[in-house]
C-alpha cells in the first residue's frame, strides 16, 4: 500500500491526481504547463513504462529536472526518439496515442475548452495563448485528461471560443465533425475530479478534494452539475509523489509562486535545476528505468 503524504498543497494534490490518470505502459501526449509536471511525476512513481510524447518532437524522455516547456532541451533527456513535430503529431492523428493531457482557461459541461481569449472573438477583452497543440491533442488523442483551475467563473454554460473540442454538443457530435480521438475523459481541478457520462457525454462530479464543500463546487459552476451517487473524497498524494514534486520544483514554479521567486535570481534557478540530479538519478535506478 502506498503511503499517503500528510502534508501537501492543493496544487500538489492536483498534479498527483492527474499523474494517477496515466497508466503504466501507455503512450501519452503531454501539453505545456502543469501537465508536464504531472507526467514526470507519473513516470518516476507508478508508471515507469509510461512514455510521454512532447509536442516539439520527443518520445519517451525521463527528465530528472524541472520540465520547462514542450520545446525544452530537457525533453531530450534519455529519450527514445527526438526529431520533428510531424512525427509526434502525425502518430497522434493516426491513433497511436492513448491519452493527451492539456489545460484550459474556460470549460463547459461537454469538456470543450477555451484557451484563446475572453470576450467576443476577434475583439477579445483578454487575449490568451491560443491553441498551441491543445486543439490537436483534444482532436486526436484516444482520451483527454484535462487539468485546470476552478475559480468560480470559468465553468461556463457557453464558451467565448471553443479552442479545443470536447464532446462538442453531446453524443455523436465528435464523430459527425470528423474527429478521430475519443475526447475528454477526466477533468482535475482545484476543487475536485470530474468524469464524463458515457451516455450523455456530460461532465459529472466523481471526487471532491479534502476540505472542499459540495455547495461551493456547485456555486462555482454555471450549469446544474450532475453529482455521482458514489461521490468520494480525492485520494491524497503519496509520500513518493510529493517527494518527486519537491525535488523537481522546490521553489514551486508550477506548484506555487516560484515564478516571482526565480525572476532574475540566476543562482537560485541553477541550484534548483542542478540539485535534482542525484535524487532523481537514484529514483530512476530504483524504478529500473
Amino acid at each position, binding site marked *: 500500500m502506498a503511503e499517503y503524504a500528510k502534508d501537501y498543497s492543493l496544487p500538489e494534490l492536483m498534479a498527483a491526481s492527474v499523474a494517477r490518470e496515466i497508466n503504466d505502459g501507455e503512450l501519452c501526449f503531454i501539453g505545456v504547463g502543469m501537465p508536464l509536471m504531472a507526467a514526470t511525476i507519473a513516470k518516476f512513481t507508478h508508471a515507469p513504462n509510461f512514455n510521454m510524447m512532447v509536442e516539439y518532437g520527443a518520445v519517451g524522455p525521463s527528465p530528472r529536472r524541472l520540465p520547462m516547456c514542450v520545446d525544452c532541451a530537457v525533453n531530450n533527456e534519455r529519450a527514445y526518439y527526438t*526529431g520533428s513535430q510531424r512525427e509526434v503529431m502525425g502518430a497522434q492523428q493516426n491513433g497511436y496515442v492513448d491519452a493527451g493531457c492539456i489545460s484550459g482557461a474556460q470549460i463547459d459541461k461537454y469538456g470543450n475548452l477555451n484557451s484563446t481569449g475572453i470576450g467576443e472573438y*476577434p475583439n477579445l477583452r483578454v487575449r490568451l495563448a491560443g491553441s498551441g497543440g491543445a486543439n490537436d491533442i483534444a482532436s*486526436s488523442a484516444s482520451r483527454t485528461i484535462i487539468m485546470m483551475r476552478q475559480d468560480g467563473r470559468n465553468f461556463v454554460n457557453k464558451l467565448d471560443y471553443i479552442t479545443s473540442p470536447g464532446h462538442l454538443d453531446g453524443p455523436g457530435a465528435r464523430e459527425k465533425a470528423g474527429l478521430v480521438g475519443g475526447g475528454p475523459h477526466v477533468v482535475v481541478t482545484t476543487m475536485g475530479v470530474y468524469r464524463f457520462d458515457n451516455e450523455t457525454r456530460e461532465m459529472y462530479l466523481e471526487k471532491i478534494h479534502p476540505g472542499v464543500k459540495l455547495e461551493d463546487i456547485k456555486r462555482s459552476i454555471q450549469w446544474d452539475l450532475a453529482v455521482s451517487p458514489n461521490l468520494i473524497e480525492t485520494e491524497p498524494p503519496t509520500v513518493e509523489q510529493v517527494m518527486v514534486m519537491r525535488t523537481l520544483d522546490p521553489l514551486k*514554479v508550477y506548484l506555487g509562486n516560484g515564478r516571482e521567486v526565480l*525572476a532574475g535570481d540566476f543562482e537560485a534557478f541553477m541550484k534548483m535545476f542542478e540539485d535534482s540530479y542525484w535524487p532523481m538519478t537514484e529514483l530512476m535506478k530504483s524504478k529500473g528505468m
Partner: protein
Amino acid sequence: MKFEPIPIRKGKAKPPAYKIMTAKEAITQFIHDGCYLGMSVSAAPAALIWEIVRQRDRIKNLSLSITSQIGMSSALIGSDLVNKVEMAYNWGGIEGEDKVFRRAVEKGIPRPLEVEDYSNYGCAMRWEAASMGLDFMPVKSQLGSDIIKYNPRIKVIDDPYTGKPVALVPASSPDVGIMHCARADEIGNVQCYGLYGNTDLLARASKKVIVSVEEIVTTAEIRRMPNLTVIPYYYVDAVVHAPFGAHWRESNYYYHHDLAYGLDAYRQFATKEGFDAWADKYIHGTKDWDEYCKLVGYDRLNRLRLSESKYQKFGEVR
C-alpha cells in the same frame, strides 16, 4: 524546325557555395520592409531576431508565420514591427502570461495586431504543404472548433475518397525563414541535435533561409553523420555563426533555458515602458550578438552549458 534546343531550365536549389555571413549582413540582405517572416521555435533564433529589431528603421512592417513562439515573437511585436501573426500559440510557457502580445491584440499597443489562429499541427501542415510545393494540406485537427469558425482560410470539405469531413489548411511560404540549429558547414548543410520541432519544414517552405548555428564545422564533419542533416544546403541562403544564439531559450545539448532571465524579461514586459527599457538595454544597447552575450555574461552562459552537460551530452547516455 529551327534546330534551337530547349533552353536549360534551372531548379530552385541554392548553390553549394560559401554562405557564412554576419547576422547584420544576412538580415540586411534578405529581410525587407513588408516581409512575410517565418520563425522556428525550437531552437529560437534570438540572435537573428535581435538583429531585425536593431534594423527597425528600415524594417517597419512584418507579418509572421509561426507555429508557437515563446517570447521571441514578442520581441518583434513589442518593438512595433508586426502587423499580423499567423499562429497557434504566442505565450510564455513556464514564464506565463505574455503581456506584450496581450497589449497588441487588446489595445493596439504599440500597434494593432491581427491574429490568424490555427492549431500547432495546422500551422505545421501549412509549412509541410509549402515544403512539397502543394497549395494546401488536409488535417484532422481543428474540426468542430471555433478555430475553423473564425478562420475563413481553413476549409472543411468532405474527403473525396471517404466522404468524411476533413480540414484543409492553406500552404504558408514565408518570404524568409529564420531558425537556430546546432551546426552547419560553410555551404549550408545544417545539422540538429535532439528535437527540432518544425525547423525542417520551415526551411523547405521559405523562399529565403537564414540559419544561425552554435558551431561552424567542416563539410567532412557533416559527412560523418549525414543523417543528422535536417536541412541540406540547397534550401539555405545564409549561415550565421551565433554561439548561444538562442538565449534566453535553449539549444539542445549545448545549454538549457535561462529561466531566471526569461521570468525577469516577462516581468519587465508587463508594461510598455518596461519592454522598451529591456529592448533598449539588451537589443539596442548592444551592437551585435557577441555584445549581447557579454552583457548577459559569458560566465553565466557557460554555466548554462555546463549544467546541461551534467544531464546529457550528445552521443552519451547519462
